[in-house]
């Protein structure tokens, strides 16, 4: 609901503007003598309390559009947000009850709507706000490199990418369930929702539950109910044990939770990353309704340099619902059976 979003946004503006004084480096603590507008809640063992339901839904994309500055003015952000609100309003207007079926040959819609018009906009909940960090409206989640874009691949990274593409070309995209995207197979969520890094998908259900005990932090991603269990300290998994979402070990640096994740599953390639990928995340609660989330991607075999981004996780005063994806996955079988049906029809036509 927009009222919730607006209030949270206003509070964020004040809180982050103040917190911005001491967020110059992610792990910095409040300088002594500066009054905080709010007291950081702490768990029973004195650590910052990050618990609750949170959302990282935002309109800010991962990469900065060409020619755009790192920050937007308040007016620019407002205009973009209004554009979204206007669009939602427009798409909510009643339709013509006497409308005919849509055009034969498709309705011209692009992207995921796939020329068949997808479904009504009321199912979508993409995020209605430009991300605000340290009092700035951000034009990209990526902050480093300074151009706000994923750095170039190394030669090795490019070679492996070409290899992957060549392997994929051996198959038609609908030949086997294994040729379909992970999200369509209900193995992982859209994009990098669970990650790490935990990134919004610009569609819906960008929600997380955090639970904290003295020796673990649990982060559950709504899609696909993936529980990432972060051990506070401890030994790494053996090199060949590679679970989805990798192996996360956490520690506190002052009031910031630092999580280092390695041992990623070979198929969970994040932007083409190799099996030496390491993701470092930093979570700092900066207000009642905001966790400042910062991440760094390091994979010298794939990227010419490390890269980092940040965005706010806002308090979600709502329930997170079960996302039992595989159990209700008509879509995957529709996709495969549809392709098989079209192949049969094409074969029949040929033989006639």
């Amino acid at each position: 609901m927009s009222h919730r979003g607006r209030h949270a946004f206003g509070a964020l503006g004040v809180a982050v503007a103040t917190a911005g004084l001491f967020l110059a480096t992610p792990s910095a603590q409040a300088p002594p003598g500066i009054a905080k507008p709010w007291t950081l809640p702490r768990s029973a063992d004195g650590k910052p309390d990050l618990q609750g339901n949170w959302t990282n839904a935002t309109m800010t994309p991962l990469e900065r559009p060409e020619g755009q500055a790192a920050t937007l003015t308040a007016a620019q952000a407002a205009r973009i947000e209004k554009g979204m609100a206007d669009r939602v309003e427009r798409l909510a207007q009643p339709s013509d009850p006497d409308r005919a079926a849509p055009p034969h040959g498709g309705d011209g819609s692009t992207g995921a709507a796939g020329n068949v018009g997808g479904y009504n906009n009321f199912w979508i909940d993409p995020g209605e706000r430009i991300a605000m960090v340290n009092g700035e409206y951000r034009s990209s989640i990526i902050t480093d490199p300074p151009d706000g874009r994923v750095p170039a691949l190394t030669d090795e990274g490019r070679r492996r990418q070409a290899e992957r593409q060549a392997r994929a070309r051996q198959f038609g995209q609908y030949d086997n369930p294994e040729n379909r995207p992970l999200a369509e197979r209900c193995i992982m969520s859209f994009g990098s929702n669970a990650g790490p890094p935990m990134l919004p998908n610009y569609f819906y259900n960008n929600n997380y539950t955090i639970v904290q005990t003295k020796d673990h932090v649990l982060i559950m991603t709504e899609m696909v109910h993936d529980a990432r269990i972060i051990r506070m300290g401890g030994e790494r998994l053996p090199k060949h044990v590679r679970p989805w979402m990798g192996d996360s070990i956490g520690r506190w640096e002052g009031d910031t939770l630092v999580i280092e994740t390695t041992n990623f599953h070979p198929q969970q390639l994040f932007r083409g990353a190799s099996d030496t990928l390491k993701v470092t995340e930093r979570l700092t609660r900066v207000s009642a309704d905001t966790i400042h989330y910062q991440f760094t991607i390091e994979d010298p075999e794939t990227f010419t340099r490390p890269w980092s981004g940040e965005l706010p996780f806002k308090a979600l005063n709502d329930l997170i619902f079960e996302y039992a994806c595989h159990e209700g996955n008509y879509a995957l079988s529709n996709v495969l059976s549809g392709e098989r049906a079209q192949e049969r029809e094409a074969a029949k036509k040929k033989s006639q």
Partner: protein
Amino acid sequence: MPKAVKQVAIAVVAAAAGALAAITAMPVSGQAPRPALPRAASGKPDLNGIWQAMNTANWDIEPHNARAALAMREGPVVPVPAKEVLALGAIGAVPSGLGVVVGGDIPYTPEGLARRKENQANWLARDPEIKCYLPGVPRATYMPFPFQIFQSESAFFIAYEYAGAVRNIYLKDPGPPQVDTWMGQSVGAWDGDTFVVTTNGFNDQSWFDRSGNHHSEMMKVVERYAMTTPGHIQYEATIEDAKTFTRPWTIRMPLYRHVNADARLGQFKCVEFVEELIYGHLRKTPLK
């Protein structure tokens, strides 16, 4: 790991180890004084940790004999394993068990019993575990996989290794469930030193075990987690479902803590393991 946390962790493990040693040294009659339970800041027992049931409930929650397989066919002399499971040999065989249902049998209505029989006859097609579907409650508790309890002052969350199933046990009742789900909607509260969880809002899709024991969407489950020693939780679940059973009934079993120093939940995201099973026939070139 910060020193303070490490010290507490060592203390807890030592206490658990000490308690277990104390118990095994005591006479079976149980007259020995109870070892002190680990407690949270609230004073309530601290159930944090990795737990697992050690029984054959997932095969059959009622008392049962060992037998060759769950899916059988007519043999020349006696029934034999069905073709689909034959190659598993002894790995596909069913172990015996005394069951976990208090009082012995599940009090089905006649329709409920008939449906269980159908489920058993069509086990391969119907058992949701075979398709890596979510296990439901209470089956999640006694799957042959560990689960981990995350208990804080403001939350109680259970992560199950099997299929990555999760349950966020709300400490504040959010009202009636808005939708039917596999794992239901759970609300938890302490009754003395026992954590009581009430769950409803189930769909009718999950089973209680591999033996076709089933329920309707009307089911309500009340679980009781009573820590008896630092290494044991006495677990009970009472099932109420007037559409399927003639009265409420209860299962009961101990849950055991994983005490090895490197104990951790593994990952069993089995969805990809069953793709050939579920979608193999839809491949461009199905395997023969």
